């Protein structure tokens, strides 16, 4: 391994992040157009993210009176980097990963736990009421989904006997986890939507808070923040594809194509509710997270455990 390998890896993950966020924004625009009754215009939807990005890139960011400037500068890039860290643990095909470490799930967990820090910093930094409320709301939200998110992934790791994402994919060569653990994928998608604070669970950046943690963001800063949010969604979909849909496994087509196709399919499932399901109340989500999501994910883990034991003996 040469010294340049990490640099190449970083560029690769960066390219994946950029195309992924572009795909998310395109899907989002297309679905919004259909729901609004304007019909499906794929070409326009594909151009829309580039246009909006160009618009934001040319605008000078404004600060508030007495912001926590370092926190503001760190928040968006940190969120982007966390999505990048999660993606770097993901294998695109057998042996084709930046860092398919034996503790891949823990790496993913550490990155996703830090999402809470990035969002809190982003809401805290402007010293303004609505972002601040958004930040505290996200803490409540994160405390409610996080355990369930990690547990469900742990269930996927049980048959593999390893926390490495490559090993988890390989263990699905006979049967995908989505069938072996029917609860796993739906629970993960709910927790993942909460993690990416997207759609009905975009509570920290909600409309009632005039944009929440992003209420004081403008120009390039806003562009980085929106990109980072979409990148987290991409990472969520990609991890779900690897852990539940068998990642690169599939007939005829080469592995990376399967991985990308599965990720895109999951992205559609994640993006559509944003235009169909209304914002959930934070309290309702918190009690849902603790009294339904968490117990169900424990049930999922133990059911997965029983199944894994029966197949191994």
């Amino acid at each position, binding site marked *: 391994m040469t010294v340049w390998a990490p640099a190449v890896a970083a560029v690769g993950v960066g390219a994946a992040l950029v195309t992924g966020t572009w795909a998310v924004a395109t899907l989002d625009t297309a679905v919004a157009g259909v729901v609004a009754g304007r019909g499906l215009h794929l070409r326009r939807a594909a151009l829309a993210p580039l246009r909006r990005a160009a618009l934001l890139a040319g605008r000078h960011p404004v600060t508030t009176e007495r912001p*926590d400037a370092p926190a503001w500068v760190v928040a968006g890039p940190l969120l982007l980097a966390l999505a990048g860290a999660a993606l770097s643990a993901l294998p695109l095909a057998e042996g084709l990963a930046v860092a398919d470490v034996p503790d891949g799930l823990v790496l993913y967990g550490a990155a996703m736990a830090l999402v809470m*820090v990035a969002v809190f910093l982003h809401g805290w930094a402007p010293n303004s009421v609505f972002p601040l409320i958004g930040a505290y709301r996200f803490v409540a939200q994160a405390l409610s989904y996080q355990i369930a998110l990690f547990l469900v992934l742990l269930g996927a790791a049980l048959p593999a006997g390893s926390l490495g994402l490559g090993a988890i994919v390989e263990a699905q060569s006979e049967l995908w986890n989505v069938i072996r653990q029917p609860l796993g994928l739906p629970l993960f998608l709910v927790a993942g939507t909460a993690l990416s604070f997207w759609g009905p669970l975009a509570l920290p950046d909600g409309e009632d808070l005039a944009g929440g943690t992003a209420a004081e963001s403008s120009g390039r800063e806003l562009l980085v923040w929106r990109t980072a949010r979409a990148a987290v969604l991409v990472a969520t979909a990609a991890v779900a594809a690897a852990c539940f849909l068998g990642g690169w496994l599939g007939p005829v087509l080469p592995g990376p194509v399967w991985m990308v196709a599965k990720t895109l399919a999951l992205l559609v499932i994640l993006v559509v509710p944003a235009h169909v399901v209304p914002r959930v109340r934070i309290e309702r989500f918190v009690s849902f997270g603790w009294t339904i999501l968490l117990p169900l994910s424990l049930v999922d883990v133990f059911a997965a455990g029983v199944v894994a034991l029966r197949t191994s003996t």
Partner: protein
Amino acid sequence: MITDVLSWGLAALSLWSAWRVFRTDSMMRAAYLLLASFAAVGALLVLLSAEFLGLVLVLMMAGEMTIMVVFMVMFMMNPAGLNPMTMVHQHRAAVAAGIVSFAGLALVGVAGDFPDRPAADEVTTTSALGFELLGDSMLIFQSAGVTLLATMIGAVALTSRGGRFGDAHAGSDAPALAPEATASPAPATDAVEEGAHAAHEHDRHGAEGEAG
């Protein structure tokens, strides 16, 4: 070579951010600088082939430090450090405690029995830990569960206001001294004053406790 440079850099980052914890005015910055310090230590552990421990340190500390920010902001006056203040109190005791703990840790570092070869790649700390937890340390593991349950119940009982039987204050009248005497309603105002007083005390003396 790269590993050496990285480990020295991470050690320096860890020390620097730990030092900044006590030099900043903002509770939020103090907590997250501490998190940065922990993250650097976690990265050091990864370099020492203790991948699981390093990553899990970051995973836990991210949540823990955020909760610490939430609580510190609730408890402290001037939580953002808008007015300058000092995070260091009781200098002598603090210096003494610092020296003692440093000496203790240094003793472990110097006198401890460390392997002098890097661990083989196929040895993973994670599975070793797993066998330990399910084997010899099973009792410790299970009693941790009971301890955590006690912690949860204690925390909820102490903090939850609107319980399942209504407001926590209702029915919390002090028992009357004489059996016939009608109990006077619990003086809620006392509770307020006590709480406020305690919070005030905390603000004055609690900085180092919170930051540590």
